[in-house]
């Protein structure tokens, strides 16, 4: 059974469908890229997969005993108030909470996991700093570190490279690939970076005016790429 399988899914808000009749599945260990132009419903799909937005029609089934607290998530935008007092460390550690059940305080294991992910994202020198005083790219890295803390089996990333400089972007792609290959984490990533998709993706889901779901090779060789490439670039 697949980790996630979606049948005839319709996505949207308040009865208004944005994407119709979407069927695809994600297997354990997959690396799925979701492509599509702005407003095509990629973020909506991610939120629907996470159960934050109810699907209008169709079904999503979770297999392989996937539990919510094994999912890491990087939102595209976080509506955080301008004046929210929170340090980098506090935010990254909060990624561990899902798996702690009713345990009230962080144990050594959680603190170490958070410290490792802070290190991975190159934030060690910033860990006591206030989140709202960081640059956009630094904030993105904080949320990535939080997502990594929450990740068990599955990692969903909504445009993780947005606002990152080229060096950090390359490191991030490397890190995600190693999580996928070495640690067996299933990755679902929304991206506008077609080159990265053609390099890293296991499978590609393209949503928009036309829907494509298949392997990277099929995506490359299908006439699809030509016709999609335009709107990805314009997007």
């Amino acid at each position, binding site marked *: 059974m697949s980790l996630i399988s979606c049948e005839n899914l319709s996505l949207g808000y308040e009865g208004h469908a944005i994407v119709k009749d979407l069927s695809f599945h994600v297997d354990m260990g997959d690396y799925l890229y979701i492509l599509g132009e702005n407003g095509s419903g990629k973020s909506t799909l991610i939120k629907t997969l996470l159960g934050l937005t109810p699907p209008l029609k169709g079904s999503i089934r979770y297999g392989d005993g996937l539990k919510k*607290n094994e999912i890491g998530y990087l*939102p595209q935008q976080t509506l955080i108030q301008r004046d929210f*007092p929170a340090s980098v460390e506090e935010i990254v550690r909060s*990624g561990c909470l*899902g798996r702690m059940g009713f345990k*009230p305080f962080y144990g050594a294991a959680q603190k170490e996991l958070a410290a490792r992910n802070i290190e991975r994202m190159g934030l060690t020198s910033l860990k006591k700093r206030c989140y709202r005083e960081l640059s956009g790219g630094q904030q993105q890295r904080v949320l990535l570190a939080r997502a990594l803390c929450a990740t068990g089996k599955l990692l969903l990333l909504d445009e993780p490279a947005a606002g990152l400089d080229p060096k950090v972007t390359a490191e991030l792609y490397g890190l995600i690939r190693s999580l996928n290959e070495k640690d067996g984490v299933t990755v679902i990533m929304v991206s506008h970076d077609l080159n990265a998709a053609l390099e890293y993706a296991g499978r590609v889901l393209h949503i928009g005016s036309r829907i494509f779901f298949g392997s990277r090779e099929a995506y490359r060789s299908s006439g699809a790429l030509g016709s999609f490439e335009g709107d990805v670039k314009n997007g």
Partner: protein
Amino acid sequence: MAEILDNLRQYLAFPFVRYAIIVGVLVALCSSLFGVTLVLKRFSFIGDGLSHVAFGAMTIATILKIKNEMPLTLLLTIICAIFLLRAGQSTKIKGDAAVAMLSVGALALGYLLLNIFPSNSGNLSGDVCAALFGSASILTLTATEVWLSIVLSLVVVGLFVFFYHKIFAVTFDESFASATGVSAKSYNLLIAVVVAVIIVLAMNLVGSLLISALVIFPALSAMRLYKSFLSVTICAAVLSVVCALLGLLIAILAPRAPVGPTIVAVNIGAFLLCSLIGKISGR
């Protein structure tokens, strides 16, 4: 100075004064702890709405001639809190309207009921004033009310400490929390219920019109000075307790100063001071 201390010692000899101080400090502690979350979640308007609901609920308890008003007031306020939370989640505008509706409605009905069914004291405006501004009710608490207040306050503080990290997560980023297995819904419910409890508790101290001040001021003051959630929470708690204590002592020593407004005035002073310190130290 010695005279003032002597005076104070005399007052402290009365058990009701000691009760008032204990309850006042505990209530101030509770309200400041959850105040940080309410302010950051932009829920402070719910706190305000609920305080009026609590006033209405109390008048109902009064005209039903229930001797101990607190349990009924508590129950009605909790129900309204849950309702407001639900309404607030559906859509923004409807939620705001629901709060306004409930709070103004409760205020009007409360006053109406008090007029139709005058209480035994025969001093209507005095009663209303006491309910709205707290005047002396903290000094007239019955032993049951004192114990109930103490127990509830300790429960509130305990819940806050126990769920501190979850409350942070749900306050900071609700969708991430619920996406990764922290039941944001349950914690929102918990917050709403606890806020209702705090409001009913605080009504005795500062009266229903001024409760929001007790909830909002310490949080906002602390946010001028500190930048991590933990330090803001601790600072708000300390500030709130100190302000409440100071306000109570002033009100006890200066017989003309009503308790609630005095505490709020001290809180305003603390806020101005914190803003100034924040500005100067460039935070």
